């Protein structure tokens, strides 16, 4: 029974780029100064399980993938070689429909079972124009040669990386000049109802709180990240989705099937049955609708960035102006007060 209740997943608010003493740093013999927030090995296992639980179409994931891939229509450029980083690979492959002129698609995920499941269903989507390759790899250690791919797509995958900036920098290096980086990640407002319910229930039952929700980037962070990673023409936009579930436990099942369950290094490994039930009850009472369903908010941020290329527009050099503001005022200022 306890197993069925599962562990609430989480997403909390703040995302820090600088190492903080409260986060766990590596202690397995290799002293590294890198901040480790997420347990990547556990995330791998969770994605293996998600591969087993993958039943078919997931409306939320499909709409995010569709939204992301639609941006390819906005580009006149074609992208013969593309890399799809883990997250919702299956949805991306299914909804691609030849957009972007992709000829070679490399699917990469941390989980072997996920890749295997995709490879097994590959013939359903086989297309004469599209060659698909499957690789198991880590986004934080991208095994791609520099200047080798035209497009990198990541749909709901990068918010589990410890070093998001590093992953983005590696993506930029792997891109050819004038290559496109498209990513969608979950934002800070995601699952705020669950966060509140978990906190209240834990305070009641256990007298304290432990992190059940992972830190997520804010919109302003996304823009900064793109710029710091060296992408030109960065663009970030945000979409809010509210998904309704019959109960809070269904939300957990959904998260589990997406591979989005808790993988924080500092997580509490024990979830008491009472606490789990209390969380579900608080969720229902605070946020439940009259018909008994509960909503869950997902804030998705879509990030777009290009690798620098001389053909891209950029701001002119300082001091190269040929007209001054005074001239403009003289020209037009007479008409206004």
């Amino acid at each position, binding site marked *: 029974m306890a197993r069925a209740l599962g562990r609430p997943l989480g997403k909390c608010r703040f995302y820090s780029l600088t190492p903080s003493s409260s986060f766990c740093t590596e202690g397995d013999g290799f002293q590294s100064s890198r901040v480790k927030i997420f347990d990547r090995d556990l995330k791998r296992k969770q994605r293996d399980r998600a591969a087993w639980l993958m039943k078919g179409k997931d409306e939320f994931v499909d709409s995010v993938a569709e939204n992301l891939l639609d941006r390819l229509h906005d580009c006149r450029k074609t992208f013969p070689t593309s890399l799809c980083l883990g997250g919702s690979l299956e949805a991306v492959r299914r909804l691609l429909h030849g957009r972007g002129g992709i000829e070679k698609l490399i699917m990469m995920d941390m989980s072997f079972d996920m890749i295997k499941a995709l490879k*097994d269903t590959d013939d359903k989507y086989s*297309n004469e124009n599209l060659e698909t390759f*499957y690789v*198991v790899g*880590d986004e934080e*250690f991208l*095994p*791609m040669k520099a200047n080798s791919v035209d497009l990198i797509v990541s749909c709901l995958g990068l918010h589990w990386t410890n070093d998001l900036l590093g992953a983005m920098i590696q993506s930029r290096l792997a891109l050819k000049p004038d290559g496109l980086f498209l990513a969608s990640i979950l934002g800070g407002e995601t699952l705020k109802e669950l966060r509140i319910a978990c906190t209240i229930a834990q305070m009641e039952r256990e007298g304290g709180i432990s992190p059940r929700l992972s830190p997520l980037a804010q919109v302003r962070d996304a823009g900064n990240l793109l710029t710091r990673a060296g992408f030109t023409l960065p663009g970030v936009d945000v979409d809010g989705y509210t998904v309704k579930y019959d109960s809070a436990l269904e939300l957990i099942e959904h998260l589990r099937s997406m591979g989005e369950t808790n993988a924080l290094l500092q997580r509490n490994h024990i979830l008491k049955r009472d606490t789990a039930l209390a969380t579900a009850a608080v969720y229902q009472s605070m946020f439940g609708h009259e018909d008994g369903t509960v909503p869950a908010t997902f804030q998705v941020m879509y990030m777009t960035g290009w690798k620098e290329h001389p053909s891209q527009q950029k701001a002119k050099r300082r001091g190269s102006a040929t007209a001054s503001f005074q001239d403009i005022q003289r020209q037009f200022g007479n008409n206004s007060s």
Partner: protein
Amino acid sequence: MARGVFSLLFRTGIGSGSGGGGGNGDVFGKLLSDILVCPLSRQALRYCPDSQSLISDSIGVSFPVCLDFPSPGNSHSTDIHLLAELWRKIINGIPCLVPKDGKILEDQIKSMGNDDSSGADSGI
């Protein structure tokens, strides 16, 4: 995971969907030489058919190319047809380039001498 399902395994990599080459070893080789590199050193990898792994000579680590073998109970192990299918699977295997999957090459350990010889496995 349907690791043991015999019929499912033989769909791996066959047909135009995966790799276009269909049973031809060039597909894997093309991807390898054009795009894939070692995740740690970013240097080229070479495929070693004996150990079925990708070797990064610059740091002396081998990454497995994961295959999916049918469980012995379901198959006729001496079947020539099975061997041909296995070979096709090797060609269309899935390279596992996660750093933790890498193993330090045993020769490297022996030649260096002062390394810890407790095992070839190493999580990097």
